[in-house]
C-alpha cells in the first residue's frame, strides 16, 4: 500500500505547478486549465485523507468540488469566448479596461 504522504506530496507538486502556471502563463486557456489543475490537486489530497482516516467526508467533498469546477468551467469558458470575440486575442494582459 502506498503511504499517504506520497499522495500528499504529489498533490502539493500538482498544486504548485498550477499556481506557477497561473502566475506565469499569458494564455487565458492555459490559466484556466491551471485552475483546474489546482482544484484536482486538492481533490487528490481530499481522497488521500479520506482513505487514511477511513472516513467518507473527503470523497463527498471531492464530488462537490467536481460539481463546482464544472459550473465554473461553464461560466469561465463563456467569459473566455466573449473576451476572445471582443479582442481577437487570448492574451490575458490585453484585458485591462479597469487599469488606471
Amino acid at each position, binding site marked *: 500500500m502506498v*503511504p*499517504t*504522504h506520497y499522495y*500528499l506530496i504529489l498533490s502539493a507538486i500538482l498544486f504548485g505547478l498550477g*499556481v506557477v502556471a*497561473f*502566475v*506565469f502563463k499569458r494564455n487565458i486557456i492555459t*490559466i484556466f486549465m491551471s485552475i483546474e489543475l489546482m482544484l484536482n490537486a486538492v481533490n487528490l489530497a481530499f481522497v488521500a*485523507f479520506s482513505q*487514511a482516516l477511513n472516513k467518507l467526508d473527503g470523497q463527498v467533498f471531492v464530488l462537490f468540488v467536481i460539481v463546482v469546477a464544472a459550473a465554473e468551467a461553464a461560466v469561465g469558458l463563456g467569459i473566455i469566448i466573449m473576451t476572445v470575440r471582443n479582442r481577437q486575442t487570448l492574451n*490575458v*494582459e490585453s*484585458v*485591462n479596461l*479597469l*487599469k*488606471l
Partner: protein
Amino acid sequence: MSILNYLWIIPALPLLGSAINGLFGKKWPNKIVNTVAVGSTGLSFLAALEAVREFTRLAPENIPWVQQYFTWIIAGNFRAGFDLQIDHLTVVMLLVVTGVGWLIHIYSTGYMAHEGGYYRFFSYLNLFMFFMLILVLAANYVLLFVGWEGVGLSSYLLIGFYFLRKSAADAGKKAFIVNRIGDFGFMLGMFLLFKAFGTLDFVPLFAKAAPLPADALGHLGMFTVACLLLFMGACGKSAQLPLYVWLPDAMEGPTPVSALIHAATMVTAGVYVVARSHILFTHAPTAMFVVAVVGCATAFFAATIGLVQTDIKRVLAYSTVSQLGYMFLACGVGAFSAGIFHLMTHAFFKALLFLAAGSVIHAMGGEQDMQRMGGLGKKIRWTYLTMLTATLAIAGFPPFAGFFSKDTILFNAFKYKTFESDTAGLILYAVGLLTALLTSFYMFRLIFLTFKGKPRYDEKKVHVHESPWSMLGPLVMLALLSTIGGWLVLPAYFGGEDYFFRFLAPVFNAPEATAEPGGRSLEWILAGVAVLAATTGLAIAFSLYLRRPGKSDQLARSMRGLYNTLLNKYYVDEIYAALIVKPLLWISHNVLWQTVDVRAIDGTVNGLADGALGIGDGVRHTQSGNTRSYAVWVVIGALVIIAIIFWPSFRPTTIGVVR
C-alpha cells in the same frame, strides 16, 4: 379668579399679537394688522391696570407678590424659574411700559400707514412689549436678563427696520455690539452674585444681602465689584458714558421706535436694574459714587453735544442720553425713587417729544434737518402745542412734570455726602444745574428753529399738513400726562405728603431727603434756582434764534474749534474707531483670519487631505490591473496565513506523521 395669579397673561398678550402678525400678517390689510397689535397691547394695559388694582388690596406681608410658573433651568443647587413678581417698583414700570407703549402703538398706526413692512413693524413692536414686560416682571436676574436681551434684539430689529439703507443696518449692528460689552459685565455680575449668595431670585438674594456689612468706601469688596459689573450692563443698555454711542445712531429706526424703545422704556432698563438692586448698591458706596459721577458726567456731556445738532431726532437722542444721566445721578446719590420718578416723567415727555418730532417729520414729508424747517407753529398747531408742553416739561418749568422730578434729583444731589464732605454733592449739583440750563437751551432752540421764525424750506414743494388724529390723539394724551404727571409730589412742597415717594417707600424702605423738617426752605430755594437756570436757557435760545437769527452763526464762527468739536460729538466715534475698531479689525484680518484660520486650521485640514491623496497615489500602483499579479498576492497571502497557523507547531519531522 384674580389676575395676580395669572401675571403671565400681561406679557403673553403682546407675544401672541407678535406671533399672529408675524406669521400671518403679510397678506392682511393694515386694518387687521393694527387691530391685532393695538388690541393685544391695549388688553395687556387693561390686564396691568387690573393687576395693579388687585395689588393695592394685597396685605403688606404678601408684597412682593411672587408667582412661580415653571422651572426653567436647574443645575446642581442653581434654579432659575419662570417666576414673575410684582411690587411697588414693578407697578410703576408696568404702567409706564404698557400705557406709553399702547399710546405709541396707536400713534404708529397713523405714522407707519404708508410704509412697507407694516405687519413686520407691528410684530417687532409687540415682541418688544413682551420682552420689556418680562424684564420688569421678572423675579430673578436670569429671567430679567432674558427680557434684557430680548429688548436688545427687538431694538436691533427695529433700528434696522429700513434694512436696505446701509446706515440703518449699520446702526442696528452698532447698537447690538455695544450692548454686548455691557451685557458681558452684567453676566459676570450675575455669576458673582450667585457665587456669593447661591441664588439669583430677588427676594431671597436681597434678604441675604441686607444684614451683611457694607463695603468700606474705596474698597473693592464683593458688593462693590458686583454692583460695578451690573452698572456696566446698565451703561450699555441705558447709553451712559462710555457706551452711549449707539443711541444717537439708533435714530435710524422709525420715529415711534425711537419714542418707545430709545426714549421711554428700553433705555431706562438700566436705571430699573440699578433701582431693583438698590439693596446691593447701598452696600457699595464706592459703586454708588461711580454711578453718580458717570450719570452726572453723561448728563452734561450729552447735553453739550445736543446744543449744536441740527437733526431734530439727534437733538432728542442726546437729550435722552442726558436725561438718563440724571436718573443715574439720582440712583447714585441714593435717591432711587427720585430716579424712578424721573424715569416715569421722562417716559411721558420724551415719548411725546419724539412722537411730536415724528409728526413734524411726517408733516415735512420726511425732512429731519431743522435748518430746513421754521415757522411750522401755525401750520401744525396741535403738534406745536403738544411739543411745547413737552419742552416746558423737560426744561423744568413748573408745573410741568419734568420740573418736579428734576428738582427732586438736584435736591438729593445737593444733600449728597460722601468722603465725609459735601464737596462731591455740591459739584454734582452744580453740573446737574448747568445741564438743566443747557437742556432748556437746546430744547427751546429746537422749538424756535422748527416752529418759529421764517420758513426755510421751499413752500411750493413741501406741502405741510397736520397729522391724522390717530397720531394727534396719543400726543394729546401724553401732553396731559407730561403736565400733570409730576403733581404726585406737589403736596410735598407745601408740607404735605408726596404720593409717589410714599408709594415706593416699601421697596426702597429708606426715607429720602424730601420731607425732612427744616429743609423746606432749602427746597424752595433750590427749586427757584432750577427755574432760574431753565429761564436763562430759554432766554439765551430766544435771543440767539428768534430775536437775532444770524447771531448763532456768528457765535459759531467766533468759536469755530469748540463748535466743530461739539458738532462732531467730541470725535468719540472716531476715537473709538481708531482705538478699538481698527485694531480689532487688524487682529481679525491678519492674526485670526490669515494666520490662525488660513494657515493653522485650513493648513491642517488641507495637509491631511493632501497626505491621504499622496499615499493613495503611491499605493494605487499595486493595483496594476494585471490579473496574474493579483494571483501572486493571493498566493503570498495564502502562504502568510499558512505560516501564521502552523508556525508554532511547525516541525520538519511532523510532516510525514499526519496519520
